[in-house]
């Protein structure tokens, strides 16, 4: 066991997989010599050399196209899109090329690739460097979508993503890069498509993702001192989605709250709400409540951004009002 930051976990995960498998290669803007703009990938160039860890031009389409073409011809590339907002400039490659090509070729090609990206807000970067876009990805058939909330999951889920035969969009949260957590020594490989129940309580289920997970946990702590016991589920994997864990915990508690950083409309919690209301409606003791960023671009000023993103206080207040 060691304390590791979330950003150090990224480099450890990539190194773990590159040591194991020569076909794993890594490319992106400023990722090699500079170790990434978030300093999540230092040391990889030194250990694995310039053939496997490659700096690219500022060409998001070329980066993702290269990852795709390499994946269909025997490599297992990891590509970095610096800020998740930048997916927009290469979205064709993601949704029309990578996501559709296996299907439209009747299974002739596979895309064992991972696209990592710094997602989400909280750093006062303003509207074009802060959005949580995991719900864009979730809306596309053919993409797996992962968002880890802690260093251990970064390693285990990134390793699982690299080993997976399908394309995985791996949303790291920018505001978590400095966060620390306990990480076991040795190889860590987790499983995609599994949520994690972080805490059990009888009164409600709070489902959260990425940077909203520590907030949901903090809220659950405060609620407990007010006599409300919450189950907290770290969703971790939007596609595949661990509906079994969600349905089981909702059946046990009778209430579901989602804590979502994505803007409100068509956020991942809407899909959860739909599944829960279709499949365990009679277990519900009250309406499903979605706690989200409002449907606005994110502002830069700290005061405004803090109001926009779901806060511990907002989660506590929403749950207390609905359950209390």
């Amino acid at each position: 066991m060691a304390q590791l930051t979330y950003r150090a976990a990224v480099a450890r995960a990539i190194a773990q997989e590159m040591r194991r498998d020569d076909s794993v290669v890594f490319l992106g803007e400023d990722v090699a010599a500079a170790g990434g703009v978030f300093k999540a990938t230092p040391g990889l160039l030194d250990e694995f050399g310039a053939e496997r860890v490659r700096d690219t031009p500022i060409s998001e389409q070329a980066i993702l196209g290269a990852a795709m073409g390499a994946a269909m011809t025997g490599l297992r590339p990891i590509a970095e899109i610096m800020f998740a907002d930048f997916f927009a400039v290469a979205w064709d490659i993601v949704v029309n090329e990578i996501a559709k090509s296996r299907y439209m070729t009747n299974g002739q090609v596979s895309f064992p690739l991972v696209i990592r990206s710094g997602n989400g807000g909280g750093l006062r970067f303003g509207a074009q460097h802060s959005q949580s876009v995991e719900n864009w990805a979730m809306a596309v058939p053919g993409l797996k979508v992962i968002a880890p909330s802690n260093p251990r999951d970064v390693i285990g889920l990134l390793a699982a993503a690299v080993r997976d035969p399908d394309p995985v969009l791996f949303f790291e949260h920018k505001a978590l890069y400095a966060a620390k957590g306990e990480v076991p020594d040795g190889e860590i490989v987790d499983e995609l498509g599994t949520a994690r129940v972080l805490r059990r309580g009888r009164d409600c289920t709070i489902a959260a993702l990425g940077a909203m997970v520590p907030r949901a946990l903090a809220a659950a702590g405060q609620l407990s001192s007010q006599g409300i016991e919450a189950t907290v589920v770290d969703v971790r994997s939007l596609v595949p989605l661990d509906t079994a864990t969600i349905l089981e915990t909702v059946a046990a508690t009778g209430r579901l709250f989602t804590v979502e950083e994505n803007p409100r409309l068509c956020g991942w919690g809407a899909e959860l709400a739909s599944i829960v209301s279709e499949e365990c409606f009679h277990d519900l003791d009250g309406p499903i409540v979605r706690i989200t960023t409002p449907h606005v671009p994110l502002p830069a000023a700290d005061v405004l951004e803090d109001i926009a993103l779901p806060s511990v206080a907002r989660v506590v207040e929403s749950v207390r009002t609905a359950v209390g």
Partner: protein
Amino acid sequence: MTSTVPDLPDIASETRMELYRLQLEMRHFEKRAYDLFMQSLVKGTSHLSLGQEAIAAAFGVAMMPGDWTFATYRGHAHTLARGVPMTAVLAELMGRANGLMGGKGGSMHLTSVEHGVMGSYAIIGAHLTIANGAAWSAQYRRSGQVAVCFFGDGTTNIGAFHEAVNFAAVWKLPVVFVCENNLYMEYTPIAAVTAVDRPAADRAAAYGLEPVVVDGNDADVMYQTAVRAVERARSGAGPSLIEALTYRHGGHSRADPGKYRPAEEIAAWLERDPVPLYRSRLLSLGVPRAELERLEQAVAEAVDLATEEAKAGPPPAPELLMSDVWADGGSSWRN
């Protein structure tokens, strides 16, 4: 028409016969595909290469097994050029179970990995970046494979083209970019929307590449150009960007009669139809007329047979709808 290809050793007579055979196959196949649209046996859309066959044929002959083709929605010819059976391609156009992709891709997405046809892509420009990835894989694995990527003149004005050519040049990738300049995007003349005269070649210098403009309707010139570019890529010398001048005989797609083009322009290019041009070349080189006629007869019969086989195919099974989103063969997104 200019050609910057240096004289290469003469082309072997078997090679010339193969260049002719492939062009004939493409020509007969696509005429048949057109007839089948008219009978509503082919649905949706389709983009023909009638008039542009010499380019795909030349690369088909110049490439080695294991090399990769990346084509566009106008990709029937490029697919046939790699030896993909006509029956499977025609059946795919007809949406049959015996189609190349079981009916799931259609005319615009022809793919046959076993023949090195790594896909036909219908979003302008994207596949140049994907071809780079295959070339990177070959470079990294030192496999000696080459990726060849075909696209049109209109494609030189989209960002992905510029990203891809720069990227390939910087990484010295074994990739050949082949711009088939047929003078039009869909309806608009390329000259009306492009800042330079030669949409591909005039951009080459920006990426440190040689400008190459060749007669895309002369299969011999195309073949020599292809050999040179493929060998350059294989030797590790990096990418090439080739602009092949050509013309499509018909409209952009099934929906387009091509009426926006001046009659004299069409007539001038029909004079330069690559298939009869090549036939005359072979005759003048002493190939017996009877041998050509035998070949023409054989190709026509093969197209008839492929048509019957394609038509005999059943429709795809409904289960196919939900298959092969994922590598496990399924489409499940939840437990």
